[in-house]
């Protein structure tokens, strides 16, 4: 690999690194010279052309600020997400050569991949593990963008596109989950799609249901009331055609915007300035020339991206050789495994089914989470912290987001590792016991008047208290933003509140209107 600095390192460094010596001796060997007669001339013009004249590399700017190269800034998560998408597309295409989306063949095609297709096991394993890793990395990418305020102007809309991409990533993974057609697949998807049936108005089991089970939201997803042949075909088409296509559309917007808005990273002040408490944005204002210091993307950034992808590929390859992707028994709609768990990234929502009716846990809360995430750049008007990690000057935003994020993963952990048969609580080291007596007995509902009073009190408290106590907070946000922010906060803390009410006060519903299927 070529060195970062334009001048040869030998001139500045007294001792040459081993890599430079080896690379040079390779480049000067007779064999190399016989193949590459003149080679790549390392001039600024060529470095610019490498990016400009290549349609793929052209996604990058020609030059970037050194701050964006620090791996501790982005951890390469955005680039790795996109790389995983490419890796999944390639392995997915190979898998499509062998896979038939019918309930007759799907499972046996999995077996054939495992036992007779050359490299079939490896292909399926790497596709499966890369998909899990992609979901994880996309979530971490979002978190890292949040903590370094990269969603603040002018990048608000790109954050929204990012949330859409997060959703598509979930859906891609979820639709792929069904395709092996084993017990794990159909029951995880049954859990997921039953939530669609709980949609208010449009789901047959939801509150104020307008439609029956043969024309509701779940039916549209599955083409049937249960997970069967038509569901498999729909999920296959969504997984292989529709979702990758719209992913590609949104990811193009996403990357193009990143290119147009530049990387968010700004130069950090030197150590002594930072100790004095100078914020990077203030320091940059005094030293505008720092913003102009840039290095060529080729090779500085491109090589880092390449190495990142290479390391990830090595890890995934190792993982795929060591561990086989799960394949349980052939799907059997008549034998429900106990417990049936959703894919891990949805298990947190499934865990909430203990505390809420499906229409809340499966429809309302995910919708609120998605729209809440999309709203973040428009309700967070604090201009501090863009382009570096800063929690000190954005305490409210960071604490709320961190609470939500940690809570999400805690729920996933509980649901995935601590729930056994009958969705009973087990410590991870305890063995499951299908006959254990249910722990949740003696639950009762609050009387509706008390429940309504409690909700009004809680809502009023959350809405009014900050307005009275922190006048500046209200003033800076204005009434509309304040209303949105506090509604999101209110809804987020309603979840742990309900968990406490159920576990410590044995309250099942705060208010209950069984006539409308509406319970809270």
């Amino acid at each position, binding site marked *: *690999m070529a*060195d*970062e600095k334009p001048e040869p390192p030998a001139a500045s460094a007294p001792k040459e*690194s081993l*890599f430079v010596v080896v690379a040079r001796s390779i480049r000067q060997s007779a064999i190399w010279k016989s193949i590459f007669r003149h080679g790549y001339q390392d001039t600024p013009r060529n470095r610019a052309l490498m990016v400009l004249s290549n349609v793929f590399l052209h996604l990058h700017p020609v030059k970037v600020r050194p701050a964006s190269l*620090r*791996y*501790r800034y982005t951890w390469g998560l955005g680039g790795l997400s996109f790389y995983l998408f490419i890796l999944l597309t390639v392995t997915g295409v190979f898998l499509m050569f062998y896979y038939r989306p019918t309930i*007759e063949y799907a499972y*046996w095609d999995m*077996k*054939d991949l*495992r*036992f*007779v297709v*050359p*490299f079939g096991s*490896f292909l399926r394993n790497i596709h499966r593990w890369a998909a899990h890793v992609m979901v994880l990395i996309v979530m971490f990418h979002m978190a890292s963008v949040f903590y370094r305020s990269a969603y603040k102007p002018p990048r608000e809309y790109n954050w929204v596109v990012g949330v859409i991409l997060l959703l598509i990533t979930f859906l891609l993974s979820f639709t792929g989950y069904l395709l092996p057609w*084993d*017990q794990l697949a159909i029951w995880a998807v049954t859990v997921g799609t039953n939530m669609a049936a709980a949609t208010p108005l449009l789901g047959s089991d939801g509150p104020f249901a307008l439609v029956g089970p043969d024309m509701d939201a779940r039916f549209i997803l599955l083409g049937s009331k249960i997970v069967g042949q038509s569901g498999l075909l729909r999920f296959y088409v969504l997984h292989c055609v529709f979702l990758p296509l719209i992913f590609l559309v949104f990811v193009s917007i996403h990357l193009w915007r990143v290119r147009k808005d530049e990387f968010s990273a700004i130069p950090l002040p030197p150590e002594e300035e930072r100790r004095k408490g100078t914020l990077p944005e203030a320091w940059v204002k005094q030293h505008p020339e720092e913003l102009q210091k840039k290095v060529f993307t080729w090779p500085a950034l491109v*090589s*880092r991206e*390449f*190495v990142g992808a*290479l*390391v990830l*590929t*090595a890890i995934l*390859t*190792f993982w795929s*050789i060591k561990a086989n992707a799960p*394949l*349980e*028994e*052939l799907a*059997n709609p008549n*034998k429900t*495994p*106990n417990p049936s768990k959703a894919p891990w990234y949805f298990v947190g929502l499934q865990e909430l089914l203990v505390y809420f009716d499906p229409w809340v846990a499966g429809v309302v809360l995910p919708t609120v989470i998605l729209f809440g995430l999309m709203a973040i750049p428009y309700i967070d008007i604090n201009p501090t912290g863009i382009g570096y990690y800063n929690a000190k000057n954005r305490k409210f935003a960071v604490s709320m987001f961190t609470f939500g994020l940690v809570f999400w993963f805690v729920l996933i952990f509980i649901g995935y590792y601590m729930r056994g048969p009958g969705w009973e609580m087990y410590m991870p080291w305890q063995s499951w*016991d*299908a*006959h*254990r*007596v249910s722990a949740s007995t003696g639950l009762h509902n609050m009387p509706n008047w008390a429940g309504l009073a409690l909700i009004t009190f809680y809502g009023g408290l959350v809405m009014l208290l900050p307005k009275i106590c922190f006048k500046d907070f209200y003033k800076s946000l204005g009434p509309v933003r304040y209303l949105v922010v506090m509604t999101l906060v209110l809804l987020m803390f309603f979840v742990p509140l309900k968990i406490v009410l159920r576990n410590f006060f044995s309250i099942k519903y705060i208010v209950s209107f069984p006539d409308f299927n509406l319970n809270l």
Partner: protein
Amino acid sequence: MKRSIWNWLFVISSFTLALMAGTLILQESMPEWMPVQREYYRRLAQVTGDPSRARMPLKVQQIYLPQFHKTDRCITCHVGIDNPKMAKQPQPFASHPDLGIPNFLSDHSFNEIGCTVCHGGQGSATTKEAAHGRVEHWEEPMLNKNLVVSNCAVCHANVFELKGAEKLAQAKVLFETKGCIGCHALNGVGSQIGPELSDTGKKLLDELDFRHVRGVHTVANWIEDHFRDPQRVVPEDRAQGIPESAMPNYELTDEQTTMLTALVLSFAAAKEDDKHPIPARFHVPAPPKTEEKKVFVSKVEQGKAAFKSYGCTACHGVEGRGGVRNKNMYPGEEVPPLIYVSAGFSKEELKTVIREGRYPARADSSGMSPPLWMPAWKGKIPEEEIEAIVEYLVTLHPEPGGKAPAPPASEEVKKS
């Protein structure tokens, strides 16, 4: 971050990636079955004296069974299954024995039936452990030699008269003399104290509790071990409200245990399987049965026969002599023997108990309810036969030295 760390990362990960690619290619080019097949052809060349056989191309071989919706790749290792010249070879090279049954091999063409229909196991697999089905998430592991007979019932409706399936016929006799249907229903006939038997062999592994089972975790082994010692396999678990297994320990011999296990598995095998339906052309129907009406010399003889055929002996003992444990039952923790009934009950009372059934009293009122109870037989035993059974029961008398409880105790039961 120093530039050289990126260089190191590049070199290390390229190197490991190349290494792993090599491993992968090596793995793919040396599958587990390959040396086995090579050894087979070496032996074949030796047996036939034709050295060119040793150079046969090595490949995955399979029997495609579209009718059963199966692909059996067992013959990738068991290549010589249909080659009589390999009869004396050790496994996996041996040919299939004819089991001493005339036309057995010609009637059961491997090309049409394959291997797993009879033997179980995972036909699509090409590694030993996976193919023999002794892996997680494969619910039909290969059946042990003595249990394969149960799968004759997959096609043969008249399995109990089948040559080669004598063990099943013997087990059937045992099944009847022990009175199994007194507690278990089979295809709807029998009572509900124990689980329905025709489904037991098709249970999924996680429907069964293997905590107290010795040996491998397979459905067949669970059944076998439960025959050996029902109370060890299903002990009382008061915390979870599971009563101990109600099944009496019949102290069966190992041979009886195995044949009864095969019998229970054959009930499941005979049921139509929606995963792998058996095509109609493979069904061997039973010859039409000529129903002969049995004539009895007396009402008492008829009752005696009915007593046996409805499985009363399972709980009340042979000829009503009792001796079957019923945990926490009052009195005596034992199913009441019937040798005293003529002293304590009128004929009408006996008929009522048979028709309506009865729940026993608990010895320890805080304990779990006794696992066995008298089911209501109304509608299951014709009125005429109930009468005959009662006629038979009143002829029973205690023999000297019988270990039955004293008559007054039965009197108390009646009152409670």
